[in-house]
């Protein structure tokens, strides 16, 4: 299992998950957009860190997340 965490975005405390671009069970490729988060009127795309299957979405649409917090797991 590989953890997908919210990367360091600078002086940002918290983001809101606005949309998952892949759903649980779907195959993902390293570098592709996985989830969109929003803060300060900015949409930021978090990418898949490796190839695999999106096994578990931890932060659902509308949830808040902090830097380095777990968003999902890829198997």
């Amino acid at each position, binding site marked *: 299992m590989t953890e997908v965490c919210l990367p*360091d*975005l*600078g*002086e*940002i405390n918290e983001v*809101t998950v*606005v*949309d998952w671009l892949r759903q649980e069970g779907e195959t993902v490729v390293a*570098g592709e*957009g996985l989830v*969109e988060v*929003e*803060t*300060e*009127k*900015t*949409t*930021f*795309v978090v*990418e898949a860190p490796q190839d695999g299957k999106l096994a578990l979405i931890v932060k659902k649409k509308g949830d808040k997340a902090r830097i380095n917090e777990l968003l999902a797991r890829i198997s």
Partner: protein
Amino acid sequence: MSSWLELVENKLEAVHLPLGRVEYVRTYHLQARLHELRCQGKIADTVITVEHEPVFTIGRSGSASNLLVPLKVLQHEGISVYDTERGGNITYHGPGQLVVYPIIDLRSQGCDLKRYIRNLEQSVIGFLARLGIVAERRAGFPGVWVGSRKIASVGVYVKRWITRHGLALNVDVNKCHFGMINPCGMNIEVVSLNELTKEKSSLAKVREGILSQMEQLFGWRFVEGDAQQYWEKDW
């Protein structure tokens, strides 16, 4: 100690792409193309400046519920509505508004989303200050405000640390069009620069002022790109 000349030479070269007045959707697709090219390292940091035909755009956290008039009325007025991937809610673009779309790599700007937004806002605040206008940020409400009225909006999309979308500054807009929405999803009043000054500013003059501020804030030296080449070139 670095000489002034060396400091100038150390500035990053960025391309300014002045598009004139262009329909929103054409610029939307151009941004997507330039974003991909910037991701591939095939172009330098590029800043589009443009004026749009009347259009409403809805960001990722917005909805059409902030449109205050029926779609039929918009069709009659010739105003389109587009969903976009930028952050934020609903906004208006139209004649008399300077729109700035930086397609830039934030890895050379510290990978800091908040700092980037602050710099976009500061380009407006610094420019307005030169005209004797006091403008400011409001905590929790990105954009630039003159008193309680909003003069500039921001809304950005970042993928692979490359930006698109950006900043819109009201210079002399049709406020009736703004009255058709709750800008940014809030019941706020907007203001144009030319309401605040005796001497009216042209969009071209405002553009030069904003670009000059951006050169200082981002450490760039602009070179002008040929917009025609970008429309026509087969990448």
